[in-house]
């Protein structure tokens, strides 16, 4: 693969590109689903190709091809240079890149069981068994299960001399039980909604989830929700389960810290950010106990944002985002690092595939664990609502005002879990919400959740991101607004 990459780099150099980088990628994916006891989707796909990004006349061009012949690659590289020269017709200033070293390396994400090498019959049998366990519960009207496996090889080469091969194996798995009664559709998912849990792991992730134990539990909860009390509308104390908090981090911390968004490069689509450059090191983002990092290193865990090098050839790093409540850092790349006074990218350029341009992306943006046990947190809460498992999520295009709803909630009264609540929701303003955080559970309750479906960029790219979180408590939160009538 490096021969083709080198040919692309040489072609770009001959055509007077001042910098170029190439990604040859081979992506393999398998999706299995069941519905109501039958196999739903059973598909496999692969895609291989090359994308080249070049800097010529001070502006960017990118082209991609799946014609992996010498002619196809040379034509693609030449096209990228001519596109860059067209870009230069509407540039304001020349692109300047932060310096970076050249690396020659090969890295593979650790996994114990390659899901592509295990018998498909075993995987389907597990899903069908979990499906059957859910359907055993009276009142369940729809059962769904899914597994998704990905294997991604990428060969990165740049004109500064880097040659980096990375292989990632990603696994995802989840269950959903739905119940339609009267005028309500209620749903419960395990271990998370919208596809379950996803991680940079092999089939061992699926085996760790104990699907058969949890399938009847969520099915019973889906049915029980019909008879549950409606979540009240009030301002009060809120405890969020880990997976919901992971999505809260994603939307109200992860996206606002993307420096391309801050600089207006996403203004037409994903939006901008309230975190203007003057806020860095000045904004009280959260309460003192809140510490958030963007950590792509393996030691942070097998997250969807874990890698050895980003797609610009910059090594994985850990960046402080919020330190003791203070806003400390953005996600940057080689082009934008100097704008926040850094002499090096924070290593967050990622691409969905060979035919997409790398853009600034979340890695693993995680809330560091606190000191509480979950039991102590409940016992310490006199009056509140516990919400778990996301049902809907929405936030404005500058990331101030958000609203989330979850699949299930429980009243907390006198330090104990009380009655089940249906249709829970909460809303607020990002910094007010995070400044109201007064308790974060410890590492024992901390999970690195995977968000596999983060959309950004034009053309749209879908990327997996990681979010470590443990259950946490917030005060004076608006609860129940999603179902308010006035």
């Amino acid at each position, binding site marked *: 693969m490096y021969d083709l990459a080198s040919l692309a780099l040489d072609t770009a150099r001959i055509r007077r590109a001042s910098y170029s980088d190439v990604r040859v990628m081979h992506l393999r994916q398998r999706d299995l689903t069941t*519905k109501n006891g039958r196999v739903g989707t059973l598909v496999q796909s692969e*895609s291989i190709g090359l994308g080249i990004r070049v800097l010529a006349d001070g502006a960017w061009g990118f082209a991609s091809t799946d*014609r992996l012949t010498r002619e196809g690659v040379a034509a693609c590289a030449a096209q990228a240079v001519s596109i860059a020269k*067209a870009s230069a*017709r*509407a540039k304001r200033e020349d692109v300047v890149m932060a310096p970076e070293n050249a690396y020659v390396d090969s890295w593979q994400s650790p996994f114990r069981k390659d899901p592509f090498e295990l018998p498909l019959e075993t995987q389907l049998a597990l899903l069908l068994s979990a499906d059957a366990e859910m359907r055993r519960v009276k009142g369940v009207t729809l059962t769904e299960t899914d597994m998704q496996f990905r294997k991604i090889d990428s060969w990165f080469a740049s004109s500064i001399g880097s040659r980096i091969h990375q292989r990632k194996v990603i696994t995802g798995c989840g269950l959903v039980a739905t119940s339609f009664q009267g005028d309500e559709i209620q749903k419960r998912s395990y271990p998370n909604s919208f596809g379950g849990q996803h991680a940079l792991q092999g089939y061992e992730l699926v085996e760790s989830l104990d699907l058969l134990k949890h399938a009847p539990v969520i099915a019973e909860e889906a049915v029980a929700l019909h008879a549950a009390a409606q979540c009240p509308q009030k301002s009060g104390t809120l405890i969020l389960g880990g997976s919901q908090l992971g999505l809260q981090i994603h939307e109200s911390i992860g996206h606002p810290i993307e420096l391309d968004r801050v600089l207006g490069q996403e203004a*037409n689509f994903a939006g901008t950010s309230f975190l203007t450059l003057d806020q860095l090191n000045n904004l009280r983002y959260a309460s003192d106990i809140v510490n958030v990092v963007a950590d792509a290193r393996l030691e942070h865990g097998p997250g969807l944002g874990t890698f050895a090098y980003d797609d610009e050839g910059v090594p994985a790093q850990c960046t402080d985002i919020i330190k003791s409540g203070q806003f400390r850092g953005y996600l940057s790349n080689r082009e934008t690092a100097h704008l926040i006074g850094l002499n090096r990218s924070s290593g967050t350029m990622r691409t969905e595939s060979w035919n997409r341009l790398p853009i600034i992306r979340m890695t693993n943006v995680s809330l560091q664990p606190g000191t509480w046990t979950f039991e102590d947190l409940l016992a310490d809460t006199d009056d509140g609502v516990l919400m778990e498992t996301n049902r809907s999520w929405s936030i*404005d295009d500058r990331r101030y005002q958000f609203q989330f709803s979850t699949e299930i909630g429980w009243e907390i009264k006198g330090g104990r879990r009380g009655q089940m609540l249906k249709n829970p929701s909460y809303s607020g*303003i990002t910094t007010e919400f995070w400044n109201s955080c007064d308790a974060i559970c410890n590492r024992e309750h901390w999970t690195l959740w995977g968000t596999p479906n983060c959309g950004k960029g*034009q053309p749209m790219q879908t990327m997996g991101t990681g979010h470590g979180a443990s259950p946490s408590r917030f005060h004076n939160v608006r609860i129940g607004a999603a179902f308010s009538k006035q």
Partner: protein
Amino acid sequence: MTAAPKSSSAAVARGPATFDRDLRGIVDTVLRLAKSFGVAETEVHVDETISALTRFANNAIHQNVAEHTVSVSLRTQIEQRTARVTTNRTDEDSLRAAIEATLSLASSQPKNSNLLAMPGMQKYRTVNRYAKQTAALTPEDRARAVRRACDLAVKRGQNAAGIFSCAQSQSAIGNSRGLLATYRDTHAVFSVTIQEGTAASWAKENAANVGQIDTQQLVRRASEKAHRAKDALELSPGRYTVILEPAAVLDLVGFLFYDFAATALQDQRSCFNDRLGKQLFGKNITIEDNVYHPLQLGAPYDGEGIPRQRVLLVNRGVPTNLVYSRSSAKAAKKRPTGHGFVLPNEYGEAPMNLVFSGGKASLQEMIASTGRGLLVTRLWYIREVDPYEKIMTGMTRDGLFLIEKGQVVSAVRNFRFNQSILEMLRNVELMGPAVRATGEEAFEMVVPAMKVRDFHFSEATKF
């Protein structure tokens, strides 16, 4: 229906790229190879896409990309088992490996007694959605249009961001029972956001023929609205009469797509469960799915190659018909309508070409008829809060304006809404003519601007 062109020269560095794959040849190769494996039934989709997108922000181009892709997606079916494999490698060895992979996947699962034999040859209506002008658009052409947009913004002390993209694609579907369908189209999009201080506005259009998009007119519209969006008032949330521009209507009602699927009703996850045939919406609401409408785009066949039918979904406020794949049609003892997804899948089908009947009121007439209300440019980050009452949440974005005594008097800070689509379509007071609208949350549809009473805003944001 257009025939797939014969293969031409390889990709070139200068000038627009051209199709260079013989799709029918690939279909024939896959069917021949599958036959040599003794496969009972085989279906193959082949798609070739050439696309390019120029992206600008801060009054300059910052991303500029192009791609040329081919995908071969094949499905084998043997003894009531099926599976699909997709690859972008088109040499015979790779296609042979893909067939073997489908057989391996298919044989690993239990039999599915609901699986139907593949359909035979079909007849299709001709649609012409390929414009040479779009296919011929170069990076220089796009750069010139972007330059004009940025120059206008700079001249007015504003900041422009957006995209200008073009694409051409051709596709073919064939199966071992003799079905063969081909299609090609072009697609151009221009979208612009203009910022003036902290105020912003937006305009976007798409079309098969780029010549139908007046990019500078869109820039001027966004520029003028961004200027008017300054000094926004903060109003209290509550129920307001709103005038939703077509993009706002599109992105909201687009969430009804899957509810019209027969499979969604069979799964009891549709908001139309127990509501078909009832007066659910106002009598001024009529909706059809019609791929042949002159403002619609898309292939006239579905994922199995079944011709798309025109389907009246809502007649004067009454949900009347659903769309059916072959499988859901058999379960419901109906005829398939040509809306099935590529198999295998668990969602069945959906209408992809919604057309609202609309009305005759102009936007100005709607504004003039409003004592107090809000004009909404577009909506953003819309998600479903309640699947049966179809309560959606989301934000207003890029231009929310207060109307008093029939005139736009001020900009307003953006609101969050929590609004049932079912209730909204009971509260439509006026509609404009249906137009081809494009947003960011739903497929393009033909929808009108709407004046809606009692639209529910629950909270305000900071800008």
